């Protein structure tokens, strides 16, 4: 284990733990951005430069900002007074420990971990990735484009739905009120309640 990997790994783990345990949601969002940057550094160390830069662009640039927007739109900025953990947190911890133990057991007993890396670093420049995207992986590329379009249109519709429906209902009600309830125009309500 080389020192750069150890530093990056400790930083990433610490940022991830901070993101999951901090009370203030904005602090959590900042910590998760640091964890994403640490993962991007790991990708760069593994000689996958394009993926590392994509990680920074998409996760630190877009997803972290989106999370901050969601926090501010839901007024989650202030820390809650009660516990931040769920009522059934003990079961979550047990499930997590079981999953982690299984993963570590599988890694320790696998034969691929003995494999050494090749001496020459594999080439993965942008030209090769672009050629692969346009030849062998052209169908997944089109599908992912369709998925992103549908997801963004769907996200806009979901986020604006309730307001527009409510506005339509109130609009229709105010239009219906006038012809259906003419007594309010002819007889203004008296304070003695004689009309009722």
């Amino acid at each position, binding site marked *: *284990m*080389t020192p750069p990997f150890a530093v990056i790994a400790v930083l*990433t*783990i610490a940022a991830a*733990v901070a*993101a*999951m345990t901090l009370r203030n*949601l904005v602090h*959590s969002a900042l910590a*998760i951005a640091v*964890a994403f940057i640490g*993962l991007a550094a790991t*990708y760069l160390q593994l000689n*996958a430069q*394009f*993926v590392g830069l*994509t990680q920074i662009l*998409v*996760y630190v640039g877009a997803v972290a900002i*989106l*999370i901050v927007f969601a*926090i501010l*739109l*839901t007024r*989650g900025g202030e820390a*809650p007074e009660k516990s*931040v*953990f*769920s009522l059934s947190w003990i*079961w*979550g*911890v047990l*499930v*997590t*420990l079981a*999953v*982690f133990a299984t*993963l570590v057991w599988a890694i320790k007993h696998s034969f*691929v*971990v003995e*494999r*050494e*890396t*090749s001496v020459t670093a*594999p*080439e*993965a420049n942008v030209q090769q*990735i672009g050629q*692969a995207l346009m030849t062998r992986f052209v169908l997944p590329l089109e599908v*992912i484009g369709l*998925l*992103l379009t549908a*997801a*963004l249109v769907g*996200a*806009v519709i*979901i*986020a604006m739905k*309730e*307001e527009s429906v409510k506005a339509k209902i109130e609009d229709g009600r105010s239009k219906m009120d006038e012809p259906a309830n003419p007594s309010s125009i002819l007889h203004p309500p008296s304070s003695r309640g004689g009309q009722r």
Partner: protein
Amino acid sequence: MTPLAGYLILSAMLFAIGLAGALTRRNAIIVLIGIELMLNAANLNFIAFWRFSEHPEALTGILFVIFSIGVAAAEAAVGLALIISIYRHYKTTNVDEVNLLKG
């Protein structure tokens, strides 16, 4: 050079942290962040296996991660839109209080 097991253990730890956050926290936004962390741990596994594979020139691991990042971005956008919609309806993002499918 760090062996493959180092990257796999790092990925397993990140996955466990994300899973713990998704299962134990109250706030729906933190649950979504935990899911993002689990997706990232899976991506790290893909890159590590690509780097240590016998045929890295096939670029399969890298392209899978690129598509996975695209899917994760779509998931984050829809998930956060759902959280905002739930917040408008229930005035809370606490997943313990949101227990009805019908509003």
